[in-house]
């Protein structure tokens, strides 16, 4: 018997679509039905069934005509951070309430050009600032995974929490995510799916609501490494509308999945053995190392000496860029404007609009960014952080120059935690990104692969970090790890 259509991988669906075994309309209906039954997950926040049905019909026509790229007819969820023409795009913020872009982001346009189908928009942390999807104006997204029979609601991670929840619960075949400090890889690890952040510059940032422009990258969140390769290729392009978009060819990533990693050098950075890290994370990491060694890779102990300073540097650079990027939300051109009192002038309009429209975490980061950029502190904080960032990047360059092909680390310092548990301590929340944030600071590609379950039955993931622009090789190493781990578990349906 064929699996439920919505539970298919992109690769399987593509093959069945091309063979005429199924249609995109059937596939799309299966996903729409799954979405309708999954309100409790809080994953989809804007539903676009009319657009989906229309796109599915067009995709079926292309398939019939034999003109079918890999993503043709594949139903996806799109993170709310992507501007989608005529469809609410709010970055999960109250300040963009009612905003319907007149244009389409380059990444979503690339997917639609390849024939993909949009089911709707996905929940996330407000402006992608968060690691638990608890700062969203729409309310929490919930992890489909639970600890055995315990009904405690767990976070799907963040900021791409809705994307992770939707893919993990088979509401769609894949989803777009974005990653500024770990926002694709951490939620992927928390929900037992695959997520890759490509090299900075691979995906155009045009039309994606900006958080920290020197760190933001889009990437796919999928059910397998092969799917990640297929969807990433469709998302990438050179785009003159993003001046940091790389003008280099996009390879056929899927064709690079051979599973052969014999002789590859895999680095194990000693600085990622953190104090107080749970035993199960350490054990899981060791198991991953053994899997790659068994597949013929050479395991090499390496050092990335400035790792400890990545999070503090990030929490200067990201808020600084955010304070600048978010200055545009002023109640003039789009979104929310506060009701003004008699005699209020333009300054009151700005201040009231931003106080009402931004949530607590966004306000906090905008103000921290304002502070570190203010006269007298710019050198002490912002310039120092940019120097430390240069050192962090050099750490990676040194190990790659020494012949390392990829680096294996845990994806997260723990499995998914309870919603509400960490929301009152900003710094404790920030520590979630301890293994992922270095990759953004260095502009490198990184992928989270689900590799096992912890003792409570929750998924755990490992992260592989690759050389710049070598996503193909990185995906192949991830493919070998995926094959060795043989992770097939799915969350039991309770929603």
């Amino acid at each position, binding site marked *: 018997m064929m699996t439920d259509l919505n539970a298919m991988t992109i690769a399987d669906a593509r093959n069945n679509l091309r063979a005429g075994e199924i249609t995109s309309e059937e596939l799309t209906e299966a996903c729409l039905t799954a979405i309708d039954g999954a309100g409790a997950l809080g994953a989809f926040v804007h539903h676009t069934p009319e657009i989906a049905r229309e796109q599915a019909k067009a995709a079926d026509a292309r398939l019939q005509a034999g003109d079918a790229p890999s993503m043709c007819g594949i139903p996806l969820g799109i993170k709310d951070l992507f501007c989608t023409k005529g469809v609410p795009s709010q970055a999960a913020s109250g300040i963009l309430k*009612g905003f319907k872009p007149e244009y389409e982001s380059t990444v979503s346009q690339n997917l639609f050009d390849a024939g993909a189908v949009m089911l709707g928009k996905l929940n996330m942390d407000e402006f992608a600032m968060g690691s638990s999807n608890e700062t969203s104006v729409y309310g929490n997204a919930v992890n489909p995974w639970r600890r055995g029979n315990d009904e405690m609601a767990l976070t799907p991670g963040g900021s791409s929490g809705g994307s992770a929840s939707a893919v993990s619960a088979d509401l769609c075949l894949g989803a777009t995510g974005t990653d500024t400090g770990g926002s694709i890889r951490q939620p992927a690890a928390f929900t037992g799916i695959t997520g890759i952040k490509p090299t900075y510059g691979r995906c155009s940032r045009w039309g994606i609501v900006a958080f920290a422009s020197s760190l933001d990258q889009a990437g796919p969140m999928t059910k397998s490494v092969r799917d990640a390769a297929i969807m990433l290729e469709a998302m990438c392009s050179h785009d003159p509308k993003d001046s940091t978009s790389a003008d280099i060819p996009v390879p056929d990533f899927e064709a690079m999945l051979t599973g052969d990693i014999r002789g590859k050098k895999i680095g194990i950075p000693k600085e990622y053995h953190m104090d107080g890290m749970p035993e199960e994370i350490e054990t899981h990491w060791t198991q991953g190392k053994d899997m790659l060694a068994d597949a013929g890779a050479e395991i090499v102990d390496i050092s990335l000496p400035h790792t400890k300073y990545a999070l503090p540097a990030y929490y200067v650079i990201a808020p600084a860029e955010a304070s600048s990027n978010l*200055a545009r939300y002023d109640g003039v051109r789009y979104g929310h404007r506060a009701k003004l009192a008699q005699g209020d002038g333009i300054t009151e309009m700005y201040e*009231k609009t931003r106080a009402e429209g931004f949530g607590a975490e966004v306000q*906090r980061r905008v*103000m921290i960014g304002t502070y570190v950029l203010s006269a007298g502190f710019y050198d002490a904080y912002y310039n*120092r952080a940019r120097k430390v960032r240069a050192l962090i*990047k050099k750490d990676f360059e040194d190990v790659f120059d020494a012949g390392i092909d990829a680096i294996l680390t845990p994806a997260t310092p723990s499995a998914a935690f309870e919603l509400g548990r960490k929301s009152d301590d900003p710094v404790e929340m920030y520590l979630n990104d301890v293994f992922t944030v270095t990759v953004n600071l260095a*502009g490198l590609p990184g992928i989270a692969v689900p590799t096992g379950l912890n003792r409570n039955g929750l998924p755990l993931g490992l992260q592989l970090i690759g050389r710049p622009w070598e996503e193909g090789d990185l995906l192949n190493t991830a493919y070998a790890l995926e094959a060795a781990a043989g992770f097939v578990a799915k969350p039991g349906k309770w929603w």
Partner: protein
Amino acid sequence: MSIDTATAAKVAKLARIRVEEDDLPALANEFNTILGFIDQLNEVDVEGVEPMVSVTPMRLKRREDVVTDGDQQDKVLSNAPDAREGFFAVPKVVE
């Protein structure tokens, strides 16, 4: 470095975010926690290190200095909270 309520108020003002007087002490506290975390950066020897400008060593592209876009006033104004006669409308700025 410790942030007092006066500094917190100044930062809120610079960021154009209204913060009620009563909320300033808690805000100053949060700033101090975060800045305390950031202060670890002072342990790093950054002597002679250039601050990073671009994470990928690429030259920004140039193009002809010509108009490539425009004539879409309606679209530009379509999301404005208050648009009148082809303009964004705001409270009176000049007395």
